[in-house]
């Protein structure tokens, strides 16, 4: 049986712990979904003047106790602001309106501003468009690896390729769950990056082994 070095043993143990911890966190608390895709409260305020998002951010930090917020300009003239946060009470809404009135010299009536609930997006819906391209790419990469490295064992190579591609995504998901990284627009970028690195790393590793095997067979033949 192939001897596994201590470093590899430690790595395997760390990966197992990460996976178990990740599953436990997801099962109990779920993923931390970022504001963009989570259920939020929204207010739309017609300022009627030019404004900077950073100024509105200062106001929301003050009124909403530094809650994470999404601030967007709306309408074609960019004079309306949409503020989204996990929670906006009526009192907070009134304070927001009064601060904006103070800052921009407007006379917006807080009663004209409604707090709307924005429902959450399902994580399944966010991931769905990526399933097919990843599946196709994985199949092609596995077939390529099996053919290119058939001297190392086509089936063994194919299985290892699938295993490591899935394992690294599992570890990434666990890390995201454990450190409570918000699921948002950058999550799929991380997934793509890890996928590409894993696939390239595997191919580089197989190329190195193939080269070693070729050198060994050349020496034997010599």
């Amino acid at each position, binding site marked *: 049986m192939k001897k596994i070095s201590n470093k590899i043993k430690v790595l395997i143990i760390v990966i197992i712990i990460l996976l178990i911890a990740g599953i436990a966190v997801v099962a109990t608390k779920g993923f931390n979904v970022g504001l963009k895709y989570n259920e939020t409260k929204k207010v739309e305020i017609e300022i009627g003047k030019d404004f900077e998002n950073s100024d509105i951010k200062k106001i929301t930090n003050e009124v909403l106790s530094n809650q994470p917020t999404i*601030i*967007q300009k709306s309408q074609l003239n960019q004079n309306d602001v949409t503020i989204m946060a996990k929670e906006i009470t009526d009192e907070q809404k009134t304070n927001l309106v009064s601060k904006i009135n103070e800052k921009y010299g407007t006379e917006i009536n807080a009663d004209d501003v409604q707090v*709307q609930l924005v*429902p959450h997006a399902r994580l399944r819906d966010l991931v769905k468009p990526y399933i097919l*391209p990843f599946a196709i790419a994985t199949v092609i990469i596995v077939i390529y690896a099996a053919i290119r490295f058939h001297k190392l064992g086509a089936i063994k190579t194919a299985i290892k390729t699938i295993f490591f591609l899935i394992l690294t995504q599992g570890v990434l998901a666990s890390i995201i769950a454990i450190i409570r990284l918000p699921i948002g627009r950058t999550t799929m970028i991380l997934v793509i990056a890890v*996928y590409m690195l894993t696939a390239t790393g595997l*191919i580089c590793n197989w190329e190195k082994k193939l080269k070693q095997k070729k050198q060994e067979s050349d020496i034997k033949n010599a």
Partner: protein
Amino acid sequence: MKRVKIITITLIIILITMIAFGGIYVKKQNRMENIMKDYSLAMDLDGSRVVRIKVSDEKQTIIKDSNGNEVTDSSATSLSDEELQEKGYTKEEQPYNSDDVKTVDNYKKSKSIIEKRMNQLGINNYIIKLDESNGDIVLELPESSNTDSIIRTIGTSGKFEIVDKDTQEVLMTNADIKTARVLYGYSGTGTASGTAVYLDIEFNKEGKEKFKNISETYKTTQNTTTENTTENTTENTTSEDTSDATQKEITMKIDDENIMTTSFDEVIENGRLQLSIGQPTTDNDTLQNYIQEASSTALVLDTGEIPIRYEVTDNEYVYTDITDNEIQILIYVVLAITVVALLVLIIRYKANGAIGAIGYIGLISLLLIIIRYANVALSLEGIFGIIAVLIINYIFTNKLLARLNKIDKTDKKNISINISKANREVYKDFFIKLIPVIIIVITFILMDWVPISSFGMTMFWGIILIAAYNYIVTYSLIKINADTKKGGNKKDEKDKQ
């Protein structure tokens, strides 16, 4: 001469870089205008149309007879209260969406049908959110010239019925439809000639059978007149009986609106119903309107009936929350890292490192220009693609320079050959290892979903440039520089002699 070549190429690269980062300014109407095409931005970097559709609370007027049955004759709705009373009818206001329709399953079904419609309309980037407590749906979709008509279409119920004109008995519904599509062709009959647009509804197996029976039952009948002559002993009497066979007709309704009333001249066995939309026309704008109308109807019939009536309550354009400031910070960080990395190249590889750095800058500039003109919709994933190209190109350049550094520089005679050989080895080794990335990129560029194709396209152009540009420019510069040094050494040796 060779130094001139190096300087010329370097100046061209500087020019391309200035164009990529600055633009091309020309004088137009007494002011300078940048004629460089701007980046095409995806929803996450530009903005989106945010639409909220709510379960409708609207009510409809129902007329009931004295037995409590609904009066389906459409003329009953126009009767006055006194007339209704005379006939023993009562008027009731009923919500379009009754309580038994407002279920989580129906909300989810509605969301699923709306998603299907958006996919069929080719909307390749959207976010859809459903509030399961009240059925509200919030959509974020990219802004385009037909966003308003898309919004109208996706929220339409799409209820299809074929009913008996007299009894209002429902004969066929959405469940009988297999597919609906738009057909058009030239129609040259009579005064109205031109391109005709048809809505073609194909029924499924059960629907085909039902439709055949309906076309048999509701066949167009002829008027018949019979004469009866009787004679008796005292007087002659002649009487004429004229009887008309009752013409049964069907009414086709979409969203409770009567589309047509007809009978059938012949039995239809192919399970297809074709409706003409408008008149045959040669006017392109009119034709486009007819096609648009037919396409909207075909889409709602093809994707199924939304079980709940929705109404649009909010519809506004919202800009991205990613500010210009945040993008600038990202650019500055990437620039700073790139500058440091290029300085490392120069320090490590000296003249070749400087050439590599110049080539590197040229490649990035060219990539940014190509992205603008190749209509790549830039999303956050696309920006990541650009950063990935920066990293891959740096690794390639470093590998190439490292390999060239190992060449025996004392062997002046064969230096060009050795450089070519080294270049080939690096290309082969590098691109073989890049194959999985190439597979991922090619797969992604074939996808419709904008964030995926944005990443794919930026990487695609990046990899093409890494291969072609580095061979044409970077490698050529390094070779010219090596030849220049060889020539310079030969000159030194001659001077010594």
